[in-house]
């Protein structure tokens, strides 16, 4: 087991700068999720930690050892790939045993570890099958099993759930969380899905364009996002931003100093009379999800935004309504610097 320390880590492909300069500390046993839009460099960063990509600048240390020049297999990391990357011509057992065999582990030790991992993942009766004869979810387990048997100090996951269907994704997500509880090993998990990030992480690292936007616990990112990008990326549906012309007098009074945007999450609105409202809006369209509904509204300034509500009776299509939110839930931003103020 080990933590990680990244200092000024950079990556260039020829003259394309993919990762600029990343500093990050990961504590031993932490579950860290790299999240960000597609192409922001999450996989590249993970692959640099694994040793599958050269580090073109800075240092990566696992535990106390700088691993820049250490061979991938000697770093004590194990990776679960998006496509599982199981060895197609080997049985499940051999897939899981392969790494140990390369390390010349004694046969009975290999057998013990493979069977123990298979037990944990409930794939004991699949050991003699080839990957071809497995379902997507089973392949996923084997891929995780292959990582477990090597008893790494850091687990790396690169979008491990994106090839599964929705139901299985939720189930596997929970199993990964359980696995982390059970093993207590450092895990780094890459995803573009903020729900996975929120549910799994001890610590979320939000990346954009090769830079870290913010690092923090899920609740910190949700309640106190540093900037408009993080505010919109975390939470679904995403946070609404209101300019002065979209707000009522009372709302405009909250734009103080550098603050020129108010950010309110769809789930934080409450309905009220027009006089005490922050925003006066006209409901336009309703998406009913059963447990709650998403109401698409239009402000007086003409901007469309979303309100999440459990009480649809207040919303009548085309009929003006007043909306407000708890003061603590209203965040002020500056649209030029994109930063949160206060």
């Amino acid at each position, binding site marked *: 087991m080990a933590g990680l320390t990244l200092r000024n880590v950079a990556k260039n492909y020829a003259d394309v700068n993919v990762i600029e300069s990343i500093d990050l500390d990961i504590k031993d046993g932490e579950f860290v999720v790299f999240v960000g839009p597609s192409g922001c460099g999450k996989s590249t960063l993970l692959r640099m930690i694994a040793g599958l990509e050269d580090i073109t600048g800075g240092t990566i240390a696992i535990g106390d050892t700088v691993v820049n020049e250490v*061979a*991938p*297999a000697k770093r004590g*990391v194990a*990776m679960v*790939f998006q496509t599982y*990357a199981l060895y*197609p*011509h080997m049985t499940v057992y051999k897939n899981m045993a392969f*790494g140990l065999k390369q390390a010349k582990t004694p046969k009975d030790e290999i057998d013990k570890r493979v069977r123990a991992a298979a037990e944990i993942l409930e794939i004991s009766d699949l050991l003699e099958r080839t990957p071809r004869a497995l379902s997507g979810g089973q392949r996923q387990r084997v891929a995780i099993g292959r990582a477990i048997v090597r008893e790494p100090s850091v687990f790396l996951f690169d979008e491990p759930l994106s090839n599964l269907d929705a139901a299985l994704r939720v189930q596997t997500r929970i199993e990964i969380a359980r696995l982390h509880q059970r093993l207590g090993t450092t895990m780094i998990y890459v995803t573009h899905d903020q729900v996975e990030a929120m549910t799994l992480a001890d610590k979320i690292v939000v990346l954009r364009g090769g830079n870290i936007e913010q690092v923090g616990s899920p609740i910190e990112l949700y309640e106190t996002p540093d900037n408009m990008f993080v505010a919109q990326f975390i939470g679904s549906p995403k946070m609404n931003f209101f300019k002065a012309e979209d707000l009522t007098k009372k709302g405009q009074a909250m734009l103080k100093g550098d603050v020129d945007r108010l950010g309110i999450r769809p789930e934080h609105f409450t309905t009220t009379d027009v006089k005490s409202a922050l925003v006066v809006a006209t409901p336009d369209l309703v998406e009913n999800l059963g447990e709650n509904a998403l109401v698409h509204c239009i402000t007086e300034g003409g901007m469309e935004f979303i309100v999440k509500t459990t009480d649809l009776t207040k919303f009548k299509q085309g009929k003006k309504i007043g909306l407000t939110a708890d003061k603590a839930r209203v965040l002020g931003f500056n649209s030029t610097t994109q930063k949160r103020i206060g």
Partner: protein
Amino acid sequence: MNAGMATIMGNRTLPRLLQTPAVVLLLAWMLVPLSMTLFFSFIRYVLNNLRKPEWTTPSIDNWRGWGNYEYVLYKAKDFWFAVENSLIIVGSIIVFTVVLGLAIAVLINRTFPGRGIVRVLLISPFFIMPAVNAVLWINMILDPVLGLNGLAIGGINNMVASLTNAPLVGWFFALWPVIEPISFRGTETSAIAVIIMVTWQWTPFAVLIFMTSLQSEDQQQKEAAILDGASAWSQFCNLTLPHLARPIAIVVMIQAIFHLSLYAEIEIVSRGNGNKNLPYLIGEFASNNIGAASATGILAVILANIVAIFLLRIVGKNLMD
């Protein structure tokens, strides 16, 4: 059209009727030559015989039973030699092309400057006619006097000769014998010449097939293997070779079919001296004794089938799954 008609022309009958001409044609295409060969192999049939002019027409009256086969198998000295040689030549070519093909395909699969040109150059031997290939190799490369073989050995001999007078080390070179270039038209070596030239010509075929297949290899599997600590050799054995099982099977099968019927190379290298395969032997018989040629032909068909079944057993399994 009524219901009755529809049953007669049920949804099977019409397509079958329409297929019939093609099927009949294909059957005739195969069966007529095969039956004629079979017939000729059981009669006395020669192109030229002054004492027995009746043998020069194929007729059932000249029935010889198993006579042609007995003659070919026991009396004609070259049959078993030709069988053995056929198998040695085909086997060697297959082994060499697959090994070389694998090595080259893996080597040029990575990116390097000029890869496109290298690939085209590598493939080009395959577009040379077999006879031209044989003439080029036997005269320009393997010839013990005028070819590269002779020139290189001559050069080495001259260099050694000139060094015998050198101070200090001269005595060492004086001990060296004069090296003789190998003559590839000789009795024992002509088969080697054929193997070399056909290997040169067909390695590109193997490279081409393997290269296409290498490009579809899953890179993440390789990365997983790297993380598992597999060496390049271990990756090759555990991932690349199994991945290439099917293309290797294809290369082996196709070459077995083609090289059992080699002819031009054998003709050009030694005219069958010391090196004959079954087609060449058939050709020799056919210059007069059509009966024996036909019997050999039938035996060759049997041999080809044995080889095919044998290969299907070992490598064909890969094509099935």
